[in-house]
C-alpha cells in the first residue's frame, strides 16, 4: 500500500516537473509569451461582440440570459485553456505515435500516457484560461460558484483531453485518424460556445452523449445558476468514465503498437 502511495506521489512529481519544464521552454522569450497570452484574451473578448448583438435582438437565447452566456463562454475558454496548458501533447498524440516518438517514453518507468501528454504546453492557452476567469468575475462572484467554476474547468478539461486521447489513439489502428481527432475536437469546441437551448432533437441527444459538450459545458452552467446535486454527480461520473476509457483505449493501442508494429513504408 505504502509503495503504491509513493508510486503515485513520484508520478505526480514527475508530471509536475514535466509541465513546469514545458512552460519554462515557452517562456524563454518574454515578449512572445506575453503577447501570446494577451492577444488570446483579446481574441476571445472579440467574440463578446457577437453576443451583445444577438442579445440586442432577444433577451433570451436558448434559455440563457446574457450573463449566463458570458459564463458559458468563459467556462468553455477556461476548459480549453486548462486542457491545452497541461496536456497539449494529448491533442497531437497521433503525430507522436506515427513518428515513433513514443519509444522514448516507453523506456521510462513512469506512466507512458501521462508522461507523453504532459511533455508539451501551449502558451496561448493560458490566455484562454485567464479569459475564462475574467468572464466568471464579470458574471458575478460567490465563493460557492467560484469553487464550482474551478471544479468544472478541471472536469471539463479532463473530458476534452480524454476525448482527444481516445480519438488520437485510433492511430494505433488506422492511419489518418488525426483528421478524425481534429473533427472531434472542433465539434467539442464549436458547440461549447453556443447555448444548448437552440439545439433540438437528435442534435440535443448527441450533445449529452457522444459529443459530451452538454455534460462538460452546459450542465455546469445550470448547476452554477441553480445548484443541483444530481447534475453535479453526473458531471463527475462522466468525467471519470471518459478518463477511464481514454486510459483503456490508449493502453490497448500501446499493446498493439508493441506487438505488431505496422511499418508503412513504400516498397
Amino acid at each position, binding site marked *: 500500500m505504502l509503495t503504491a502511495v509513493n508510486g503515485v506521489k513520484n508520478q505526480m512529481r514527475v508530471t509536475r516537473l514535466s509541465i513546469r*519544464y514545458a512552460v519554462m521552454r515557452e517562456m524563454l522569450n518574454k515578449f512572445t509569451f506575453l503577447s501570446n497570452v494577451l492577444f488570446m484574451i483579446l481574441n476571445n473578448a472579440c467574440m463578446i461582440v457577437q453576443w451583445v448583438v444577438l442579445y440586442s435582438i432577444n433577451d433570451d437565447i436558448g434559455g440563457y440570459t446574457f450573463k449566463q452566456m458570458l459564463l458559458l463562454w468563459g467556462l468553455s475558454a477556461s476548459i480549453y485553456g486548462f486542457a491545452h496548458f497541461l496536456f497539449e501533447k494529448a491533442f497531437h498524440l497521433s503525430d507522436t505515435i506515427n513518428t515513433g516518438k513514443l*519509444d*522514448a517514453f*516507453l*523506456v521510462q518507468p513512469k506512466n507512458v500516457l501521462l508522461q507523453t501528454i504532459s511533455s508539451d504546453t501551449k502558451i496561448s492557452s493560458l490566455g484562454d484560461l485567464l479569459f475564462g476567469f475574467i468572464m466568471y468575475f464579470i458574471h458575478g462572484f460567490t465563493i460557492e460558484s467560484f469553487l464550482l467554476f474551478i471544479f468544472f474547468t478541471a472536469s471539463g478539461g479532463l473530458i476534452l483531453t480524454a476525448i482527444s486521447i481516445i480519438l488520437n489513439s485510433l492511430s494505433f489502428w488506422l492511419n489518418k485518424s488525426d483528421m478524425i481527432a481534429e473533427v472531434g475536437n472542433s465539434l467539442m469546441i464549436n458547440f461549447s460556445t453556443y447555448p444548448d437551448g437552440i439545439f433540438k432533437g437528435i442534435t440535443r441527444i448527441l450533445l449529452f452523449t457522444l459529443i459530451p459538450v452538454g455534460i462538460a459545458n452546459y450542465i455546469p452552467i445550470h448547476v452554477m445558476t441553480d445548484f443541483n446535486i444530481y447534475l453535479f454527480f453526473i458531471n463527475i461520473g462522466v468525467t471519470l468514465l471518459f478518463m477511464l476509457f481514454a486510459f483503456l483505449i490508449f493502453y490497448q493501442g500501446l499493446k498493439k503498437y*508493441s*506487438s505488431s508494429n*505496422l511499418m508503412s*513504408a513504400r*516498397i
Partner: protein
Amino acid sequence: MTIIEVKNLSKKFRVKVKENGLKGSLKSIFKPKYKVVEAVKNISFEVEKGEIIAFIGPNGAGKSTTIKMMTSILYPDQGSVRVLGFDPVKDRKKLSYEIGTVFGQKEQLWTHLTPYDNFKFFGAIYDIPEAACEKRIDELAMLFELDDFINTPVRNLSLGQRIRCEIVASLIHEPKVLFLDEPTIGLDPVVKENIRVLIKRMNKEFKTTIFLTSHDVGDIEKLCKRVIIINDGQIVLDDSMENLKYHYLNKKIVEAKMKEKVNLDDEDGITILKDKGYNLKIEVDTTKRSVADAIKLLNPDNIIDINISNVPLEDIIRNIYQKKD
C-alpha cells in the same frame, strides 16, 4: 553471470505494399496489400556481466528491432528475451529501472534546460532522492568531463557534448545494462574518439554491461571485446574481437617511405597494393611470411618511415558477408 539472454528471437513486420499508379493507390485504400518482412530471424545470443558487446550490421539488418525488443518497446513474435532475468514484455516498468538507453538520433533531453536540470528531471523519473541524485550527477559529470557546460542550455551545446549528456542522463539511475543505439552517429572523428574513451572508462568504473549497435567500425574496434554481426535479420558471426581479427585479420598492411627506389614484385605472401617509387604499400599474409621477413625484402637501411597496420574492419566484414553469400 548472464545478463542478457536471447533465444530464438523472431520478429516480422507487415509492410504495406503500394502498387504504382492510380489503380494501385485506389486499391490500397480499399484492400491494402501487405508484405511480410522478417526483420529478425531466429537469433540467439547471451551477454555476460560487464561485457561491452558490439551489435553491428548494415542499415536495415535488424539491429534496432532487436534492441527495441530488449528494451520492451517492441514485443517479439517468437522466442524469448531475458534482460537481468526480466521479461521485457511483462516487466516493462521493473526492467526500465535497471536499464539505460541512448538512441543516437532521438533526443531525450529538454533542449531549453541545462544538462544539470535535465539530470534532475531524470532523477525524478527514476525516483532517486534529491541528495543521492546530486551526488550521482557530480560523479558522472567528473567522469564525462561535463563541468564546463553543465549549466549551459542543451540547445547551445555541440553535438558531441549533447551525446555525452544523453549518455549521462541514461546513467543517472545506475542502470546495470546500457543500450547504446548508434551513439557516435554524425560526430566528427575526434569527438567520436573522445566518446569512445569515455564509454570505456565508464564501463571500467561502474562495471556496466554495454550493448552497442553501430555501423561505425571504429566504435567496435576501439570498444568491444566481442562482436555480433547481423545481416538480413540473422547472426552472421558471434565471436571475440580477437578471434575475428585472427581469422579475418591475418593480413598486415605495410606502408613504407624509402630513400631509394626498390624493385619489388608480387611473390608468395606479399601483394603490392601501391608502388609510387619512393612510397610503397604492401599487404603481407602473415600465415605465409612474417612481417619481419617482408621488411627485410625492403632493405631496412633504406626505410625513412614505416607504418604497419591491420586491414580495416570494414573490409573484413565485407569479406564475411561475401563468404556467406
